[in-house]
């Protein structure tokens, strides 16, 4: 079975916010097809009644005492930002002018 088309790769890249180039699409489509055909082997395992494991440590609802500890200061939190303004992260305009 053919696993993945160039168009599907382009769609997935958009979903994942990757502005991939045409060259990359050509390369990735072929490579991902090989990888998907190999990993599709998991489908050969009869596992209807097997519960899934998402995690090897069966911990749920881990609690700790509600103790105040120092966190990052505002300057520290902003220290790695590509752009900051008025003590905030600056990003390009999200809404249109008229909004």
């Amino acid at each position: 079975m053919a696993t993945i088309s160039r168009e599907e790769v382009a769609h997935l890249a958009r979903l994942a916010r990757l502005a991939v180039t045409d060259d990359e699409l050509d390369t990735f489509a072929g490579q991902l097809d090989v990888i998907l055909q190999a990993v599709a082997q998991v489908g050969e395992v009869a596992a209807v009644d097997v519960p899934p494991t998402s995690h090897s440590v069966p911990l749920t609802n881990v609690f700790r005492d509600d103790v105040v500890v120092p966190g990052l200061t505002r300057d520290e939190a902003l220290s790695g930002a590509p752009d900051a303004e008025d003590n905030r992260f600056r990003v390009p305009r999200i809404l249109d002018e008229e909004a």
Partner: protein
Amino acid sequence: MTDVTKLTAAELGRKLAAKELSAVEVATAHLDRIDAVEGKVHAFLHVDRDGALKAAKDVDDARAKGETTGPLAGVPIAVKDVITTKGVPTTAGSKILEGWRPPYDATIMTRMREAGLVMLGKTNMDEFAMGSSTEYSAYGPTYNPWDTTRIPGGSGGGSAAAVAAYEAPLAIGTDTGGSIRQPAAVTGTVGAKPTYGGTSRYGLVAFSSSLDTPGPCARTVEDAALLHAIIGGHDPRDSTSIPQPVPDVVAAARLGATGDLSGVRLGLVKEFAGDGAEPGVAAAYRESVDALVKLGAEVVEVSCPSFKFALPAYYLIAPSECSSNLARFDGVRFGLRSGDDGKHSLEEVMQLTREEGFGAEVKRRIILGTYALSAGYYDAYYGQAQKVRTLISRDFAQAFEKADVLVAPTTPFVAFPLGSRTSDPYQMYLADLYTIPSNLYGGPAISVPAGLSEGLPVGLQIMAPTMADDRMYRVAAALESALPPLTPPAL
């Protein structure tokens, strides 16, 4: 005169405690070694000479004042660049984090600093720890000290090469599918993946959160155990951290070094007994099992039929988790931002940033994970892979009823030539064939030198049950005591 860089961490610790050496002398010797060989090895992405010398002086000052110091106080260490280090550049091998200086230390960094370990710098790695050769680093590959035309393994090739090239006696790695053990195997060093949850992930730049495990790299089993004991243990900042003390791995390593394995049941995994391994690797594996038997170990064959599905399951689970984890690299809070020229929308800026900042392997895995998690494919891929994970854990549980530890080769092939597998990603993935089952199960595993094949190192992998890390250290140290030490050719 003794070459300080050839000493083990344990020996350095003793000489430092006895004031035969100062921490500044030890740090200087290693920094000079780095200066001398980095042009050939490229193990480091950043060398923190000033920070190392200051930390070393602090240890010397504390000792001069008579303060109590631990067994590794003043011993240098190299740290994989996926661990956050306060104020020291941390890139995870990616352009998207170029120049980022984290505002906080990872928990394991805090513990190492408190123990007086002296950080020399940050080591090279495949971008975001995705790879088996360090060729997927955005900053160029690391070269294997045994043969600089060959790969040092990955993703932690920088840490393993730094240790093998005597640039550092110890290093930190992280192991998601074999990134500590496979580099150890191909560089003739020791690398341990602790029990998942036995070492904190706080401050580890996440790749696959249900698998990522920090651990030690060293030239001897005892050194790895000493470092494991310092970084291990419960951390309330990691909600998957196991709230139990780490077993006494140092005592286990010292017990193993006596060379007595009587009463230890060694499980040979039938499905991994050389299948898919190069002849030289299979031969070294059989010889190391014979050596363990001579030390008194009893051999039982175990069957783990689901292990053959571990590699496909891993290459669904890990990319799925990475596609989610790497969503945080959006050009807003840290790292690179591209296309912010007033003409592009926020979404376009995110797309351009990620396109420019991520390398090809990272993009492939993000796309693969996005596919495996998408509606219509989820049950067949990610859901099914999670069921396989259950079956693999059951295989381990059954095998550990008959055996105390399981053994297998660490990796199917010795260090391969640079560039020989980069054009075919799935050929690269096969390097992890034998290491992945322990990641999916969560139990600890160690790679220890098991001789040479055609002049290149081979590793034996010893796998143990969850929170029985001590068992693998005992067997590893016993093998180490029985085999001649491996010394790489002079660089």
